[in-house]
């Protein structure tokens, strides 16, 4: 469904991605782990064309989307809950969800709204509250809900657990598992919280310094001593 082939991305002179290859098949949850500054966010953003890959290709459902303008991707079925959540802080919860549904049309709106309110009942209670006044956990729920409102076939999530209490993290991961199971939604998940992410994912990639250094099933990487030492020990 998603294929990234030999992608290089630069910020000015800095080469943040140095030839990245990954693939995500339909219906999978694939996770990408790696330490700070590895280039994970850059990869998600490059998939969305901002910044653009300077070399290599991004293919989605067989089509080359490397040069497609960012604002067209949501119509093609790619939605992202980005790093830092990026809630529209001076809009209400409801307006944020309407923004998510911008290119979906009014026909599905009520049904989709019920669906995300089922997943995140907290948002329903706070529908008229301004995004900027939500708690961190609620903002993360809203960021995911907003992405879901576009009925994506591929959901990109950038560190949804960052800074959240363990209980909220569990809730968010449950939702990810749930939408993957019941809707068959494909998920590409970037995480620092490697333990949870590897347990959830079908497959995983490890990124170091702009390169993929390791790939395998979630269970394989969980068992890998190097991974344990680098990303798991101490944390959990």
């Amino acid at each position: 469904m998603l294929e990234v082939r030999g992608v290089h991305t630069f910020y000015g002179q800095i080469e943040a991605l140095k030839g990245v290859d990954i693939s995500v098949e339909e219906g999978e949850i694939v996770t990408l782990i790696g330490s700070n500054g590895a280039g994970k966010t850059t990869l998600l953003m490059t998939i969305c064309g901002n910044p653009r890959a300077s070399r290599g290709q991004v293919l989605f459902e067989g089509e080359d989307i490397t040069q497609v303008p960012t604002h067209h991707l949501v119509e093609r079925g790619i939605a992202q809950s980005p790093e830092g959540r990026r809630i529209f802080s001076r809009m209400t919860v409801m307006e944020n969800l309407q923004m998510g549904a911008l290119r979906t049309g009014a026909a599905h709106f009520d049904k989709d709204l019920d669906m995300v309110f089922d997943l995140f009942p907290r948002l329903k209670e706070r529908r008229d509250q301004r995004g900027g006044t939500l708690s961190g956990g609620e903002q993360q729920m809203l960021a995911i809900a907003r992405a879901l409102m576009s009925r994506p076939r591929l959901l990109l999530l950038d560190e949804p657990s960052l800074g959240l209490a363990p209980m909220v993290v569990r809730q968010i991961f449950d939702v990810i598992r749930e939408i993957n199971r019941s809707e068959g939604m494909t998920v590409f998940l970037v995480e620092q919280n490697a333990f949870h992410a590897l347990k959830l994912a079908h497959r995983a990639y490890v990124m170091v310094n702009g390169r993929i250094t390791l790939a395998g099933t979630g269970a394989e990487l969980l068992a890998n001593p190097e991974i344990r030492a680098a990303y798991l020990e101490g944390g959990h």
Partner: protein
Amino acid sequence: MLAYFLQQLINGLTLGSIYGLIAIGYTMVYGIIGMINFAHGEIFMIGAFVSVIAFLVLGALDITFIPLALLVVLLAAMVFTAAWGWTVERLAYRPLRGSFRLAPLISAIGMSIALQNFVQISQGARVKPIQPVIQGGVVLFTGDEGFTVVMSYLQIFIIILTVVLMAVFTWIITRTSLGRQQRACEQDRMMAGLVGVNVDRTISLTFVMGAVLAAVAGLMVTLQYGVVDFYIGFLAGMKAFTAAVLGGIGSLPGAMLGGILIGLIEAFWSAYFTIEYKDVAVFGVLVLVLIFRPTGLLGRPEVEKV
């Protein structure tokens, strides 16, 4: 005394409506790109000039049915200002979006000067007069000293049209998808792109919407004073800019409130102090606001919880 006061109030509100309409253009553009559109005064000037020319053409064609004439003139003014507003964004702002903040301001001022000179050369430097279009008014009442308070039909027209436009714009910004897209670009341009907003197009539209209101203001000034010259954009632009800052730049109700306050200050200062110093009074307000309340009356402080 009361009658005189009321008359100034009416005059001030009328003038304030015009400033407010121009101020909205400043505030909307500032809201979405975080920069002042320094070519906005000239957009207003074009609105006024196109109005004069359109009235002259209609006069020559013997079209005397006033509502039709007003509509045609308004549409003509809007088309030209919209085109110019769009051009300013494309030429002065978009290519320089990633560069240092002063660059687009300089290019916008450059475009303003070029346009002023073009109008001066093509239309002549002397003022252009037209015959009064809307005449007469209603006498509201006569005060003790025999002073009558008059509200001209033109003033009624200006105030009603302003209220209607304000209502429409407030509705667009707060309730429609276009308004949400504009606010999204204002708050987080990158995220707006991710949810599918065409950011470039939305910014262009914002310039055009501001320009269209400036066209209405241009028409109003033409009707009110009956004369225009190539230089009116500068002073009116500066005053409307003051209004936008006073109300809180970036805030739509703020722009309107600021416009009305500036109009009132100007009217009352002229009536009770010295007419020569009315502009000084207005810009004195700008200085005071910048010193004591840089966020304006309805503006929000820069720091906020994200």
